[in-house]
């Protein structure tokens, strides 16, 4: 009997911790300055909060643990994938960043790739010209 009461209180505390993380995710998504930081705050905090809520309900009902583990694993896999796709699409269509943004590695990478492609194209044209002169 005492063990059951202890388990209920422990599981409720873990659920409360998860609910706190979900609340802080809402606060972050409301207060952050631009879309990318909102993606960061929203996704990571909701993943942790969801995992803690699953763990708490799993402590409260140990016989549900397998399906709760399935839900937790699914959220753990899909949430980063969707946030990554969303951030990439937002960067692609030119969502503005906050003025305090320090570095943009994806833009630098794309600029370097475009310059390399342009240089290769110019080099190929020069080679074709020289071949034409020789003939």
């Amino acid at each position, binding site marked *: 009997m005492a063990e059951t*009461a202890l388990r*209920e*209180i422990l*599981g*409720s*505390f873990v*659920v*409360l911790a*998860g*609910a*706190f993380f*979900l*609340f*802080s*995710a*809402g*606060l972050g*998504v*409301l207060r952050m300055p631009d*879309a990318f930081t*909102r*993606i960061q705050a*929203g*996704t990571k905090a*909701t*993943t942790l*909060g*969801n995992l803690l*809520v*699953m763990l708490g*309900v799993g402590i*409260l*009902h140990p016989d*549900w643990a397998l*399906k*709760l583990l*399935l*839900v937790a694993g*699914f*959220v753990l896999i*899909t*949430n980063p*994938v*969707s*946030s990554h*796709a*969303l951030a*990439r*699409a*937002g960067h*692609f*269509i030119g*969502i*503005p960043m906050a003025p305090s943004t320090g570095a943009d590695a994806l833009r630098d990478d794309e600029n370097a790739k475009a310059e390399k492609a342009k240089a290769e194209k110019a080099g190929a044209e020069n080679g074709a010209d020289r071949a034409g002169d020789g003939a």
Partner: protein
Amino acid sequence: MADVLLKLSGLLIFFGILFSLARLVIGRTIVDRIVAIDMLTVITISLIVLYSHVSGRFIYVDVALVYGVLSFLAVLAVARYLERGL
């Protein structure tokens, strides 16, 4: 004791949903709105599982799982549409 803790966590989840609904309304760009929707779905999965504990019915965990699958596909579809059209 356990009832009070569960009510408190329900209150915190309510405020999380309220804040992300505010972001969904004021939005400003489309990515902000989709992020708010994505967050709302994950919070709703937690809320459904919590409700399955409160009501004592195991079947709601299956509902949460199917809801997660469908919402994940929705967010991926919107991201793909933004990046290169349908």
